[in-house]
């Protein structure tokens, strides 16, 4: 674990940066200036790219396990490292497209994943 001081520093950085991202439009454009078109463009196209990036980031250990064992993907020890995540992501997508309920999708997928890694793929 981090020391208490290190953890407080990390939380302070998160708090300050979060506030700055929320405050920036007010700092720059509150006097009636029009935001540059380039900023608006990036504000539109960057969020989906960043979310896709973060999904890959979340799944990094699963992806690396697949890449390192391409010839033995069905080997039980390897299978355990990618199939639970793949199934759970698929369930989140299906639930969300079907019911469009954020909480159902998030908790349905998470509970499935916990059951899979704790009781099925061990």
């Amino acid at each position, binding site marked *: 674990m981090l020391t208490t001081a290190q953890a407080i520093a990390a939380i302070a950085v998160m708090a300050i940066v979060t506030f700055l991202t929320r405050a920036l439009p007010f700092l720059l454009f509150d006097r009636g200036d029009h935001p540059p078109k380039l*900023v608006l463009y990036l504000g539109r196209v960057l969020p989906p790219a960043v979310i896709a990036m973060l999904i890959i980031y979340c799944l990094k250990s699963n992806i690396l396990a697949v890449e390192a064992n391409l010839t033995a993907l069905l080997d039980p020890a390897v299978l355990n490292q990618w199939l639970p995540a793949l199934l759970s992501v698929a369930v989140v997508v299906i639930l969300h497209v079907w019911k469009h309920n954020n909480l159902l999708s998030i908790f349905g997928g998470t509970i499935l994943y916990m059951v899979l890694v704790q009781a099925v793929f061990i």
Partner: protein
Amino acid sequence: MNRKTLSAAFPVTVPVLMGYLAIGMAFGFMLQAIGYNYIWAFFMSLTIYAGSGQYLGVQLLNTHAALGTVALMTLLINFRHLVYGLSMLEKFRGMGLRKFYMIFSLTDETYALLSSVRVPAGVEPHSFYFTIALLDHSYWIIGSVIGAVAGALLPIDTTGIDFAMTALFVVIAVDQWKAYKKHLPALLGAVVTLVSLTLVGADNMLLPALAVIVAALLLLRGRLDEAEEHSKGKEENPVC
């Protein structure tokens, strides 16, 4: 804030109450699972107040991320807030000191409420907005503290609970996929990050990935700019 404002604002915030209690509890649970108790959950939710940002924060604390990484990741995940602020410039004008709190508390949910809500007759708009923001924030804090306490008391094996973060991002991605006409930015983000993970490795993958993504999006501006213009503002049902 008076009684009338509160009784006008509360019903508006009930959907957020449900959502924040649940997602906040999962956050508290995850935080407790990596060894940080309810006091940490309380202060994180009080001072950071960002759903997906705090989910990511759990991961950052757990992996002992360097402060530079913490700053970059927080910046990335909150980049969308830039767009929210732009559409709140008018609404928050003339709010005095309360404006700082309004800006601080501009989460996806509060943004969604404020941009759609109608101020009831006889209620002062600025107090109404402020009360909504304050209620939402308190739900988030309460949810995360309950989650952390529950995580400490209940003898549950929490292995795999960190998948809640992945699930949250997948949900956001599905919503974005529906709201956007062109899917090139999302596909680009995924492919570039995959390549970066493979070439650079898990520890330093994000910065090169982001640099390439931004560069590619700037190069593709001619193709993407016009197409996305029409779907602007359609992004619905944001999560955190």
